[in-house]
C-alpha cells in the first residue's frame, strides 16, 4: 500500500531547504556538521600553532593574544561537541538511518523534524555572530564557570558570552525535539515483525543517547537560564557576594556534562557495531548483553559527575563516593569493548575502509578508556586535574567518537546516501594519514601533562618548570602532527565530493548486509521502500550454516 500522492517535482527551495524528508534533513545536519568541523579544526590549528611556535604570527590568523587564545579554545571545544559530534552522530545518522533501518517511510513527525534542524541552524547563526561582536567570541572555556562567565568585567567578552549561552540553549532545544522524534519513531513506527531485540544496535544506541540527553540536560537548561539572568539582569545566582554560589553551576553543568559523553559515545559504538558485523560477516557477540551494558552505562553515567570537581571545593568526603562510581562505570564499558572484540572471533574479516575505521575506533578508544582511570581515581586526579593529561585522555575518547566512527559511518553508508561508491584507495590513504597523525598529536600531550603543563594557557613562558626545551619539543611535535592530520582531510574532501558525481554507481546492497536500509534503492526515493518491509529475524544473521549465502536479510521471508 503506497501513501504516495503524486505531486509535481519540488523546486530547489522545497527540496533542499524546506524538506520534511528525513534523508534530506539528515544531509542538512551532516553537511552543516562537516562545515562546523572545518571551523573547529581551524581553531585547533590556531591554538596549536601558538603552542608549537609561541608568539609567532599564525598564517591565516595573525598573532594569538591571550584573549584570542581563550576565545579560540572555548569555541573549539564548544563547536566540536555541540555542533560537530552531536549533529553528525545523532542528528545526521539518526535521521538517515532510523526510518530506513526500522522499515518506515519517514519519521513519525516530519515537520517537527524540520523544525529541529531550523532551530539548530539558528543556534549556529547566533554562535557564529559571536565572533563578530564587540569583545569577540566568549573566552571562558566551554565549561563556562561563573563568576568568570557571568560578568563581562571578568571575561571581557560580555556580548560573546551571552550569544554563546543562547546558542547552546537553542542547540539543546533542537536536540530535545529531534531526540524525542527519534524515540517515538523507534518505539511506534517499526515494520511489522520487528521486535525490540530485532532493532539494529545503531538505532538502539541513538535512541538511548537521546533519552540520556533528555534526562540530563533539564537541570542545565535551568542553570543556563540562571546564568543568562546573571549576565543580563544583574541577578546573583552564582555570585557569592549576593548569596549565590559558583559551585551550583559546576554541579548543574557536570550533571549534564558527564552523561553527555555517553550521549556521543553510544551512537559511535552503534555505528562501529554495524560496520564490524558486516565486514567480519559475523553476528554481534552478545547483542542483548551489549544492550544491557549500554543501559547500565547510561544509568551509571548519572552518578559520576563530580569526578570533574574533585578539587573544586566540594566536601572532600563526597569525592570518595564519586571515585567509586567512576571506576565502577568503567566495568560495563570494558565489557562492551570486550564483546566487540569477541565479535571478531570466528569471522571472515575484510579490511575495507569502513572496517579500518571501525577497528581503529576500538583500538584507540581503549587508550582513552584506560587513561580515564588515572583521572577517576581521586588521589591521582589531584595532580592531573586541569593538565594536558586530561586533554589527551578526552581526545583519545572524543576523536574516536567524533571523527573515527563518523568516518566509519560515512564511508559505510555513502553508497546508500548518494548512490555512488567512494574510492577505496583514497579512503585508505586518508585513514592511515589521519590515524597515525592523531596518535602523534596526543601521545606527547600525555607526557607534557604529566610534566605539569596546565590547560588553557597560551604560553608557558612564566613557568620555569614548564618553559623547558624538552617540553617545548613535545608541544611542537604535537603541532606538526596536527598540520599533517589536517592536510590528510583534503584527501577525504576530494574523495567525498568527486565521488558524488563520478564514483561507481552503487547497487542497493553493495556490502551484502542484512539490515533493512540495504533493501531500499541507493539512494532511497521519497517514501524509502516501494513496498514497506516485514521483518522475520534479528539484524545480524551472518554465517548461518547450511545456507547458500553467508547473510540472511531481516526481511527475507524464506
Amino acid at each position, binding site marked *: 500500500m503506497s501513501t504516495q500522492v503524486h505531486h509535481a517535482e*519540488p523546486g530547489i527551495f522545497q527540496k533542499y531547504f524546506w524538506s520534511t524528508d528525513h534523508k534530506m534533513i539528515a544531509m542538512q545536519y551532516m553537511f552543516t556538521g562537516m562545515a562546523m568541523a572545518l571551523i573547529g579544526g581551524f581553531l585547533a590549528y590556531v591554538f596549536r600553532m601558538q603552542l608549537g611556535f609561541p608568539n609567532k604570527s599564525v598564517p591565516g590568523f595573525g598573532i594569538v593574544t591571550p584573549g584570542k587564545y581563550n576565545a579560540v579554545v572555548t569555541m573549539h571545544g564548544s563547536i566540536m561537541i555541540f555542533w560537530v559530534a552531536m549533529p553528525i552522530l545523532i542528528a545526521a545518522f539518526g535521521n538517515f538511518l532510523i526510518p530506513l533501518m526500522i522499515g518506515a517511510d*519517514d519519521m513519525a513527525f516530519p*515537520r517537527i523534524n524540520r523544525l529541529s534542524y531550523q532551530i539548530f541552524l539558528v543556534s549556529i547563526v547566533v554562535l557564529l555572530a559571536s565572533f563578530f561582536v564587540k569583545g569577540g567570541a566568549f573566552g571562558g572555556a566551554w565549561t563556562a564557570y561563573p563568576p568568570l562567565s557571568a560578568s563581562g568585567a571578568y571575561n571581557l567578552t560580555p556580548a560573546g558570552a551571552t550569544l554563546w549561552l543562547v546558542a547552546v540553549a537553542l542547540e539543546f532545544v533542537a536536540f530535545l525535539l529531534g531526540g524525542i*522524534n527519534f*524515540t517515538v519513531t523507534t518505539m511506534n513506527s517499526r515494520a511489522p515483525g520487528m521486535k525490540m531485540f530485532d532493532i539494529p544496535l545503531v538505532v538502539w544506541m541513538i535512541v538511548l543517547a537521546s533519552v540520556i540527553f533528555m534526562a540530563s540536560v533539564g*537541570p542545565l*537548561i535551568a542553570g543556563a*537560564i540562571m546564568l543568562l539572568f546573571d549576565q543580563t539582569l544583574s541577578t546573583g545566582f552564582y555570585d557569592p557576594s549576593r548569596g549565590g554560589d559558583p559551585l551550583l553551576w559546576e554541579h548543574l553543568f557536570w550533571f549534564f556534562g558527564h552523561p553527555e559523553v555517553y550521549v556521543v559515545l553510544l551512537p559511535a559504538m552503534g555505528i562501529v557495531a554495524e560496520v564490524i558485523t558486516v565486514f567480519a560477516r559475523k553476528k554481534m557477540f552478545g547483542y542483548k548483553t551489549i544492550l544491557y551494558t549500554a543501559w547500565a552505562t547510561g544509568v551509571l553515567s548519572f552518578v559520576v559527575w563530580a569526578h570533574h570537581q574533585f578539587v573544586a571545593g566540594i566536601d572532600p568526603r563526597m569525592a570518595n563516593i564519586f571515585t567509586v562510581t567512576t571506576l565502577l562505570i568503567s566495568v560495563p564499558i570494558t565489557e562492551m569493548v570486550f564483546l566487540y572484540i569477541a565479535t571478531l572471533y570466528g569471522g571472515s574479516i575484510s579490511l575495507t575502509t569502513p572496517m579500518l575505521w571501525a577497528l581503529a575506533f576500538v583500538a584507540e578508544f581503549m587508550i582513552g578508556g584506560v587513561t580515564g582511570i588515572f583521572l577517576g581515581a581521586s588521589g591521582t586526579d589531584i595532580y592531573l586535574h586541569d593538565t594536558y593529561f586530561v586533554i589527551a585522555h578526552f581526545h583519545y575518547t572524543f576523536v574516536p567518537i567524533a571523527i573515527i566512527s563518523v568516518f566509519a559511518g560515512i564511508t559505510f553508508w555513502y553508497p546508500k546516501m548518494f548512490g555512488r561508491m567512494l574510492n577505496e584507495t583514497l579512503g585508505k590513504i586518508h585513514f592511515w594519514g589521519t590515524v597515525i597523525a592523531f596518535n602523534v598529536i596526543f601521545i606527547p600531550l600525555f607526557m607534557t601533562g604529566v610534566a605539569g603543563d596546565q590547560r588553557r594557557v597560551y604560553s608557558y613562558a612564566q613557568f620555569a618548570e614548564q618553559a623547558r626545551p624538552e617540553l617545548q619539543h613535545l608541544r611542537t611535535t604535537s603541532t606538526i602532527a596536527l598540520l599533517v592530520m589536517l592536510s590528510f582531510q583534503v584527501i577525504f574532501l576530494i574523495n567525498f565530493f568527486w565521488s558524488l558525481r563520478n564514483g561507481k554507481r552503487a547497487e542497493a546492497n553493495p556490502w551484502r548486509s542484512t539490515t533493512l536500509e540495504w533493501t531500499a534503492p541507493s539512494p532511497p526515493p521519497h517514501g524509502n521502500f516501494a513496498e514497506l518491509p516485514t521483518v522475520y529475524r534479528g539484524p545480524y544473521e551472518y554465517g548461518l550454516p547450511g545456507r547458500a549465502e553467508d547473510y540472511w536479510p531481516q526481511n527475507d521471508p524464506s
Partner: protein
Amino acid sequence: MSTSAKPIANERHVTGIPTARLITWWVIASEIVIFGGLLSVYVMHRLGHPEWAAAASHTNTLAGAFNTFVLLTSSLFAVLAHKAADAHDGPRAAKLLRLTSLGGLIFLTVKGFEWTHDIHEGYVISSGGFWSYYYTLAGLHGLHVLAGMIIMLIVAADAAKNQELQRVECIGLYWHFVDIVWIFLFPLLYIAR
C-alpha cells in the same frame, strides 16, 4: 512531495500507544526534568536561607490562590474538550479549548497586575536570592502557559473543522502538566515560610 500528507510512520503504533500521545508524554518528560531541576535548586537554596521567608512574605498570596483556581478550572475545560473530541464533536471541543485558553489569559493578566505591583514596591528580579528564583520560576512557567495557549488555539482551529481531533487530548495533557507545575510553585513560592 507533499508536506501535509502524513507518513505511514505516523500511523503505526507498535507499542499500542497512539503516536501523538506518546510524543506528548516524552515532551512532558523533558519538561519535568527542566522544571524539576530548577525547582530542586530553589528548594535547596530556600532551605539553606531561612531569611528568604521575609522576602517571600511580600508575594501576593491572594493573587496566587486566585490563579491556582483559574488554572484548575481551565484544566476542567480541557478535560471536557477531550471528552467532546472522543465523541467526535469537533466544534464543541474547539469551544472548550478556547475557554481553556481564556483561563490561561486570565492567569497571565492577573500575573501581570501582580508583578506590576511587586515591581512598584521595588521587588525586581535582581532584588536578591528569593526574588531571583521567584521571577525565574514563575516566568518560565508563564512562558509555558503562553506557549500552551497559542498551541491550543491552533489545535482548536483544526478541531472546529473536525480535523486532527487526537491533538485535543495531547494539548490537554500538556495543559495539565503546566497546571501541576503551578501546583508545586504556588505553595513553594507563595505560602512557604
